[in-house]
C-alpha cells in the first residue's frame, strides 16, 4: 500500500510538470527542452531554505516559484528570438548550463553531494497526507492550465503555434506571449520541484539533467499535446510502465535498460502512428 502511495506521489509531481510543459510545447508550439532546470530551481530553493534557514515549506515554495520566474524570464528573453529546431537546441543548451550550475556552484548547492535532510510540513508527515497535499496542488494547477488554455490568452497561444506571422499581422506582440507562457510553465515546474524535494528528503543535481527534460517531453507527447488531461494521462502511463516492468520478472540488471528500450520504441511508434498522442488535437 505504501508502495502505491509512493507511486501516486511521484505521479502527481510528474503530472504537474507535464501540465506546465504542455502549456509551452502543446499550446504554443515551442519545443522547450529545458523544463528540468526550473524543476531543479524549485527543488533547490526548498532544499536550501528549509535546511539552512528553517523556513516554512510553503514559503520556500513561493521563493522557488519567484526565482524560477525570474530565471525563466531571462532565459526566455534569449529563447524567444528563436524558432523551431533552433529553439529546441538553445533550450537544450540552457538546461545543460543550469545543470552545470547546480553541480558546480558548490557553496550554495553543495554540488553533487546534494542536500539531505529536507523537512516536510508536520501535518503531512504521513505519506498518505502528503499525497493528498500534492494531489491538491495538481488539481489547482490543472484548473489554472485549463483556464489559461480556454481564455483569449490561450487562443493567442494556439494562434502562435499555428502561424506566428499571421497573428503578428493583427498586431499581437508574440514575443510577449511566448515569454509569458514560458515563465508560467517554469513557475509550475518549480512547484513540482518543491514538492519533490520535501518528499524525497534528499536532492542532488543528477535528477535535473537533460534526460529528465526529454522524459517530460515524452510524457506530454504520449498524452497528447495541448490537452491537459492528456498530460496527466501521459504522466500516469510513463510512471507506471517502468514499475510494471519490475514485476514482469526480467533479471534486475536488464530491467532498467528494458525500460529505456520500451520508452524509446514508444516514442518512435507514437511518431509513426499517432503523433498527436493519446488525447491530442495537435501534431508537433
Amino acid at each position: 500500500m505504501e508502495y502505491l502511495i509512493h507511486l501516486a506521489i511521484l505521479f502527481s509531481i510528474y503530472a504537474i510538470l507535464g501540465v506546465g510543459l504542455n502549456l509551452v510545447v502543446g499550446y504554443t508550439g515551442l519545443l522547450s527542452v529545458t523544463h528540468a532546470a526550473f524543476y531543479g530551481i524549485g527543488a533547490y530553493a526548498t532544499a536550501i531554505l528549509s535546511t539552512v534557514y528553517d523556513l516554512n515549506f510553503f514559503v520556500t515554495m513561493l521563493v522557488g516559484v519567484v526565482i524560477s520566474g525570474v530565471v525563466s524570464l531571462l532565459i526566455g528573453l534569449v529563447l524567444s528570438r528563436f524558432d523551431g529546431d533552433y529553439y529546441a537546441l538553445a533550450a537544450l543548451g540552457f538546461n545543460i548550463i543550469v545543470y552545470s550550475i547546480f553541480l558546480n556552484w558548490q557553496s550554495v548547492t553543495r554540488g553533487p553531494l546534494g542536500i539531505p535532510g529536507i523537512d516536510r510540513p508536520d501535518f503531512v508527515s504521513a505519506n498518505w497526507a502528503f499525497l493528498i497535499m500534492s494531489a491538491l496542488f495538481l488539481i489547482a494547477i490543472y484548473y489554472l492550465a485549463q483556464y489559461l488554455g480556454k481564455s483569449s490568452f490561450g487562443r493567442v497561444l494556439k494562434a502562435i503555434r499555428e502561424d506566428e506571422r499571421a497573428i503578428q499581422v493583427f498586431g499581437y506582440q508574440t514575443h510577449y506571449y511566448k515569454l509569458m507562457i514560458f515563465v508560467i510553465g517554469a513557475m509550475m515546474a518549480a512547484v513540482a520541484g518543491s514538492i519533490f524535494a520535501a518528499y524525497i528528503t534528499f536532492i542532488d543535481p543528477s535528477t535535473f539533467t537533460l534526460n529528465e527534460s526529454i522524459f517530460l517531453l515524452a510524457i506530454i507527447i504520449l498524452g497528447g499535446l495541448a490537452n491537459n488531461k492528456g498530460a496527466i494521462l501521459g504522466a500516469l502511463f510513463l510512471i507506471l510502465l517502468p514499475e510494471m516492468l519490475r514485476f514482469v520478472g526480467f533479471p534486475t540488471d536488464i530491467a532498467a535498460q528494458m525500460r529505456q528500450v520500451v520508452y524509446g520504441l514508444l516514442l518512435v511508434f507514437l511518431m509513426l502512428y499517432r503523433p498527436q498522442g493519446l488525447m491530442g488535437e495537435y501534431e508537433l
Partner: protein
Amino acid sequence: MPTAVKIVVAVVVIILVGMAISAIQKKEVISGQPLRVGVLLPLTGKFSNLGEDLKNALLMASSDINKNGQKVQLTFEDSAADPKVAVLGAAKLLDANSVQLIIGGTGSSANLAVAPIMEMRKTPFFPLSATSKLNSAGTYTRKLLPDMDGEASKIAAYAFAQGARKVAILYDTSSDTHVIGKDVFSTVFSGLGGTITLVQGYDSKTTADFRSVLTRVKDVGPDAIYALAIEKVGGPLVKQARELGLTQPLYGFSALESDEFFNGSGLAAEGVVITAQPFSCDGAVAMQKYCLAFKASYPGRQPLLYGAVGYDLLFALALASEKYSPDFSKIIDEYKNNPSVYNLNGTPQLDAHGNVRTVDFTMRIVRDAKFVELK
C-alpha cells in the same frame, strides 16, 4: 472517451490489480521462517561492477546458508545509484516483498535518500558505503564499510614519508566519499608540512576523457598525485596520466582494487600505490577459501571487497536469526556483537551504534597488473 484512452486506462487498472495480487500472494508465502532480506544495489550505472560483485556474493552466501533448509530469502532491486530510483526500489521491497531488512549497495546519494524511509518504516538498513554521513543517518542505519578518513590520513602520511611536498588531488565531485578523502588528505598532509598545489574535481558521469583535467595537473608539476577514483574510472585516468607524460607517483584508495581497473589502465598502472582494506585473495585462509569458491561459481569474475563484506554480513545475520528468531531486535543486537563470521575484511571495529568505523588498512602496490602487499 477515445479508444486509445480506454486502452490506457484498462492497462493501468490491470497493472494496479496485478501489483496488488502479487503483494498479497507474497505475504502468504512469507508467513514461514526464512529471514527476508532485501538488497538494493546498483546493477546499472557506474557502480554496476561493484553491484554485480555484491549480488554474486550474496547469492553464493544464500545458497551456502540454505543448504539445510531455507533460512534466508533474497530479493534484489536496482538502485542505479540514483536517489529517485532507489527510493522506489526500497518502497517496493518493503511493501511488495515485505522484507525485514535491506542491504544497500555502493552509491552514497542513493543510500542517503533511502535511510529516512527505513527510519520511518523502522526497518534495519545496512548500506555498503564508506561515507561518514551514514554514521548518523538514523537509528536503523548501520554502515558496513570503514570511514574513508582512515585511508586518506594513512596515504597522506605515506606520501610525505616518501618525500612528496607538493601534491595534486583529483576527485570525483559526485562522490561524498571522495570529498571526505580529499579534505582529510589535505588536512593531514598540510599538517605534516606539505602543500596541496591543486584540487581538481572531475565528473565521471559525463566522460572518460580526463586529458583536460590532467593537463592542469601537468601544469602545476606536483611531486605526487592523489587520484581518488573507483576502478572503472581509475583505469582510463591512470592510463591517460601516463600518456600525457605525468611520471609522478600515483596514489589511490581501496575502491581502485579490481580487475576492471586494469581493463582500463593496462600496464600504465605499474607502481600505483593504494591504501587497501584487509580483504585479499592472497590473505587469510578464510579469504582464500572465499575467493576459490567465488571463482568457481562465477568464472571470469574477480571477487572484490564488496561481495566479501556482503557474504560475511549475510552469514552473521543468518546465525543471529537462528539464535533469536522471531525476536528481531535481538537479531540486530547479536549482529553488533558478532558483525563478521569469517572476518573476510579483517576485524571490523564498530561504534556503539553498530556502524563499522575502521579496519586495519594496509597498503598495496601494482606489480605486473596485480595488486601486491607493499612492505
